[in-house]
């Protein structure tokens, strides 16, 4: 109680934030392509299940992660086909994808593992924890930045990669154009659909990683509905970060920090429900300061 912020808190934030961050980055790409993806929750769930299933079937962690990514790719392809080709309402498809993910993972859990609720095997291996050689030697920082799964490191690396991609490369530039104005992009001969599919599929890869981190990184098991609303938080982080990778990292970390603090504040003076409100309330408060709404607009208008 005396120390609310310590190194284990920071460790915990980074771990907890990774799935949200990854999914939010995926959501951002979709938003930039004009698709407001509320199906993130379901996609993470499929990723989480795919990772555990892959691990069980293939017995190799690397392949398990790939398997998870593959599973989510099928889902995102479905999402893309319905929204891009069949022009179905993006939000309805997103919600339906969430239902579908919930139903399928639960069904397959009992069909494949013959268990209900959760699959846990104490011999199942989780993702390895890495220490970056030189970084881990630095006194305090080293402790903060060491001992995570490769996915955690790659998530933060991806923030930089995506930032460079969106703002420095030709493809990224076109991506942004599609998000800024579909009509302009189309009139200049950009293959809009191709970019939309690319966004949706990349989002699938990222959600696959997010799920794998959740089920093989943070814990080593699959539980029905284990995403517990992380997909929606990712959606909020995406919007708050204005579909900008660095912004998303900031908003995810803000949310993570508040979430971790709310855990530590339990039992101090406020009733628990109120401490649990903290991350949501602070996120709303944060919006008083971030007002540029360029991409949010895409979200709300594409839904009509």
């Amino acid at each position: 109680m005396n120390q609310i912020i310590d190194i284990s808190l920071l460790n915990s934030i980074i771990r907890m934030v990774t799935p949200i961050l990854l999914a939010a980055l995926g959501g951002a790409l979709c938003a930039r392509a004009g698709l407001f993806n509320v199906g993130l929750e379901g996609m993470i769930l499929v990723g989480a299940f795919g990772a555990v299933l892959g691990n069980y079937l293939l017995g190799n962690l690397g392949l398990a992660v790939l398997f998870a990514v593959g599973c989510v790719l099928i889902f995102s392809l479905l999402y893309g086909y319905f929204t891009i080709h069949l022009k179905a309402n993006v939000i309805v498809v997103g919600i339906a994808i969430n239902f579908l993910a919930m139903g399928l993972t639960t069904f397959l859990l009992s069909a494949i593992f013959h268990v209900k609720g959760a699959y846990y095997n104490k011999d199942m291996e989780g993702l390895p924890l890495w220490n970056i050689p030189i970084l881990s030697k630095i006194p305090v920082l080293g402790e903060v930045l060491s001992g995570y799964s490769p996915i955690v490191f790659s998530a933060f690396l991806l923030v930089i990669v995506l930032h460079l991609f969106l703002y420095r490369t030709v493809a990224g530039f076109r991506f942004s154009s599609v998000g800024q104005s579909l009509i302009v992009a189309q009139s200049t001969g950009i293959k809009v659909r191709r970019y939309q599919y690319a966004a949706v599929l990349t989002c699938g890869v990222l959600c696959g990683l997010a799920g794998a981190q959740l089920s093989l990184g943070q814990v080593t098991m699959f539980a029905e509905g284990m995403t517990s609303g992380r997909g929606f938080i990712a959606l909020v982080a995406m919007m708050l970060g204005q579909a900008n990778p660095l912004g998303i990292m900031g908003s995810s970390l803000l949310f993570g920090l508040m979430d971790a603090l709310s855990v530590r504040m339990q039992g101090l003076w406020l009733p628990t429900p109120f401490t649990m409100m903290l991350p949501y309330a602070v996120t709303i408060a944060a919006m008083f300061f971030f007002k540029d709404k360029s991409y949010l607009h895409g979200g709300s208008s594409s839904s009509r």
Partner: protein
Amino acid sequence: NDTKGRESAADDTKQKRVALITPEKIGVNPFFQIMDEGAKQAASTYKLEQKTLESADPNAIEENLRVAVAENYDLIITSSFQSADALKKVAAENPDKKFVIIDDVVDLPNVRSAVFREQEAAYLLGAAAGLSTKSNTVGMVVAMDIPLMKKWTSGFEQGLKAVNPKASFLVNYVGSFTDPAKAKEMALVQYSKGADFVAGASAVGDLGVFEAAKEKGFFTSGQDIDRTAIDPKHIVMSQLKSANHVVIDSIKQWVEGSFTPGVHEYGLKEDGVGLTYVTDNNPFMTQAAIEKVSQIRSDIISGKITVVNPLK
């Protein structure tokens, strides 16, 4: 959904039929899982036809109850507070049918109510933890901050303070029944605050607590059913709540013709709740502690120790 009861349906046309209606999908909840197992077991012992109906959401409970009545099941078992209101209506409308509710009370002449004294088992768990902790700090990761869970936290705290008044007790609420990742982080937080024992009371989240224990090498305990087999080095105890026992007991009484309405309590004495622990080479509890805990158990059964029900 298929039952053993059906297989033998051919040879006995006047077979009695039992329906079990869970208030939510059985899915994540071991409490309902063992209830289902108990029903199936009793069905095969007493040659009954049995069907389990899972309710997708609270509104489906009443629906399922009515369907069970309409399909003329002879005994209808349901459970938990979510079902109480629905059962009150349905049971009052069908006075000829027999009903059982587990874990809540419905005061009607055709309803048998079975409730648990979870606080007694929690008391034992708290006492065991209090006797064994080296750091004098123990914790519990709880699913939700709702009154029901006070039976766990309060019972645990009573037992803990009784044997070790100086020990401090940490509690964290996950806010969900299905979030092992968050439960794990909470267990890690408690560990970082010095807890060497963290009890799991967060449904599926417990698996996350177990993992944290394995990773950091502290001790933990499970819920409802015996979880120690998963990892006896760290999961050293399990607080039992034998819904299967209660289901079997209810069916047995009914089959034997001694179905009695009213409230039936299941505590340590009735074997409805209990505590199990790793018996050989328990790394957390000393033999002395184990003996002390069994002493407390008999004291509770004999009434020498009374565990306060926090909800009364």
